[in-house]
């Protein structure tokens, strides 16, 4: 089992490289055409504030999707968390405890999802669809007729504050990304995620405790949704029952664009992080260019479909990843590369 994962881990991530190139091209293009896009790099960094919450949800969604499951409740959980932190702050709870309650709610929803999916064996699509409704209704009823808004400047810093030129929320996202990428790439838990998604029976026969892994991964997704909710509340200086719900589909879009197989078993979280920036900057850049949100949404759709068609057709034709195929092509033309080629052929 470790053998499978190791071979994949040390290969250069071809899709990630492609996405990075697209990201760089995109940033260059918008910087050249739109006066206020870059602003010496500062404007670009501030723009990330608008899609960091989506990115945090995408981290959790990617881990869940790796196991072949899905968490439809993540967006609603973020809404609930935002409402909880907002209400607590308005009732005079300190900032620290209020944030802990909100993330705690996220953990609770995630844990509940995980337990029902793992112990009762009910499909995660159905379970999280149900918890999505529960979380939304709870958020609506806690929010009531006038949902909380107008928080302390210290709390708002989480959403709109800067450390030097770097937004606080971007730093939070960076830390969470490093943690999740490290855990998923370099630990047994991470390898178990992919193996369960690839073949759950095989995973169980090889000694992986699939149930506890599933409980953990749903709890991870829930707690990340909790963090996203806190940042959303801080960014908008208000909390509403739909504040996170609308981020679910963009987050899943990032996961898919990041090359994670929607049926599980394959994918890298690092590439999902790059995809978050590709999609986020694309949307913001188009809006700044004066495109209507209609056009921006449509172009996002085309980019996603185009990327998937290319990825799938390349992989299907070659039976290997993009970069491996490219290297093989280079190897055919360069006799000196023969050893590398034979190595690749073995796979």
């Amino acid at each position, binding site marked *: 089992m470790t053998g499978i994962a190791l071979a994949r881990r040390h290969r250069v991530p071809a899709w990630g490289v492609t996405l990075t190139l697209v990201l760089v091209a995109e940033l260059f293009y918008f910087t050249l055409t739109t006066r206020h896009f870059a602003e010496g790099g500062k404007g670009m960094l501030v723009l990330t504030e608008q899609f960091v919450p989506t990115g945090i949800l995408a981290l959790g969604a990617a881990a869940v999707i790796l196991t072949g499951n899905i968490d439809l409740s993540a967006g609603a959980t973020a809404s609930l968390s935002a409402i909880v932190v907002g209400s607590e702050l308005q009732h005079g709870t300190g900032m620290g405890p209020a944030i802990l309650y909100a993330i705690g709610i996220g953990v609770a929803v995630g844990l509940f999802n995980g337990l029902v999916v793992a112990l009762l064996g009910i499909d995660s699509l159905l379970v999280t669809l149900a918890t999505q409704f529960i979380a939304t209704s709870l958020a609506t009823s806690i929010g009531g007729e006038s949902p909380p808004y107008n928080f302390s400047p210290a709390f708002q810093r989480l959403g709109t504050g800067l450390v030097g030129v770097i937004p606080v929320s971007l730093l939070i996202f960076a830390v969470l990304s490093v943690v999740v990428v490290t855990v998923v790439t370099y630990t047994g838990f991470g390898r178990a995620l992919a193996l369960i998604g690839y073949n759950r029976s095989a995973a169980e026969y090889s000694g992986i405790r699939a149930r506890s892994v599933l409980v953990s991964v749903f709890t991870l997704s829930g707690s990340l949704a909790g963090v996203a909710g806190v940042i959303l509340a801080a960014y908008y200086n208000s909390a509403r029952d739909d504040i996170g719900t*609308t981020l679910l589909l963009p987050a899943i879009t990032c996961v898919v664009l990041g090359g994670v197989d929607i049926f599980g078993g394959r994918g890298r979280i690092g590439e999902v992080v790059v995809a978050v920036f590709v999609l986020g900057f694309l949307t913001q850049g188009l809006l700044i260019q004066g495109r209507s949100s209609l056009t921006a949404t449509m172009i996002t759709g085309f980019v996603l479909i185009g990327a998937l068609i290319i990825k799938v057709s390349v992989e299907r034709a070659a039976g290997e990843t993009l970069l491996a195929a490219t290297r093989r092509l280079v190897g055919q033309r360069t006799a000196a590369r023969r050893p590398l080629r034979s190595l690749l052929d073995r796979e």
Partner: protein
Amino acid sequence: MSTRKKAGKGTVVAAGIVAAVALVTSACTSGANAGGGNAPTGGASGGGGTGGAVVNNNGDMTLAIVPKLLGLSVFEANVKGAKQVAPNLHMNVNYTASVKASGPDQANVITGLVKSNNPPKVIAYSANDPTSEVPALQAAKAAGIKVIGFDSDVTASARDYFIQDTGYPEMGQALIDAVVKKFGSSGTVGILSSTKDATIQNEWIKAMRDYISSKYPDLKIGPIGYGQSNQATSQTQATNLINSNPDLKALIPIDGAAVPGALAAVKALGQAGKIGVFGIGDPNPNRQYFADGSLTGLFLWDEVKQGQLIAYVARMVADGKMPASGGSFTAGDLGTFTVTNDPAPNTIIFSKPLEFTKDNYAQYDF
């Protein structure tokens, strides 16, 4: 696996990379072309100016209208009105909004306008909720853009002026008076609103309660249904209200989607004519119900004229000629308006409620 490999696969790969780059580039390029197209449009409506004139020069200004979402007929009517008077005001109207009725999405659109190469001089919004757009609007103000609201407001500190559709007490009175005139001053009426935290709808509900308690104490407001601004949900909620309140005299749907929903429910239950429907909404989606008589009263305001007022106020705000609270101003053919601090600072109340009837609805197209 890789025994049957030839250059063909390599070509696929290379083509793939090229296609990926081409896709992104062409998407962006077409965007740039369209962007280039925007400025000339603006220049052209300035009316025979010098060829290729830069927008914002010679008193020309751009007004960006950002309603809750794209494609709602009432907002299109606002834009139509603004465009009618725009040439006289040397103004270009840029109508843009998000695809979904979402506060965060709307904030994104506003941020995009503020940072664009040709930022508008004035932004007029109708807010999806009172708070989500506030950071973006404050950024707009910081960038020197004037901000006016219409229809749905945000926290007053984030905008310069707000054009309120109609006085809340007047609307509450008009609805209740219409009910009493037709069905007498006792019994139960049911209210069908949009969402629990919808600011304007809650104001109207409060106005109706206040008016009933002071004038018609025998009239009772039953439970309130929430149709989530969705026609099908509204119909379900209306059906529930009717079934659970056997003595219901009238339904008062106070949201654009709730009116046709309530009417459909009344009709489906065979109660047309027995249970009255008095709503707040636009006439276009309800034309058939005017014709068959199941819609007993419909109120709104003239959306086209409201759009004209938005344009007049935008021009005056941009020129720094808007009076402070307590002052009044003249807006072309629309007449004179007063700026008040009631119910919120720097508010302009647009008009009295306009009643649509069987006889006059055909004159309005929204």
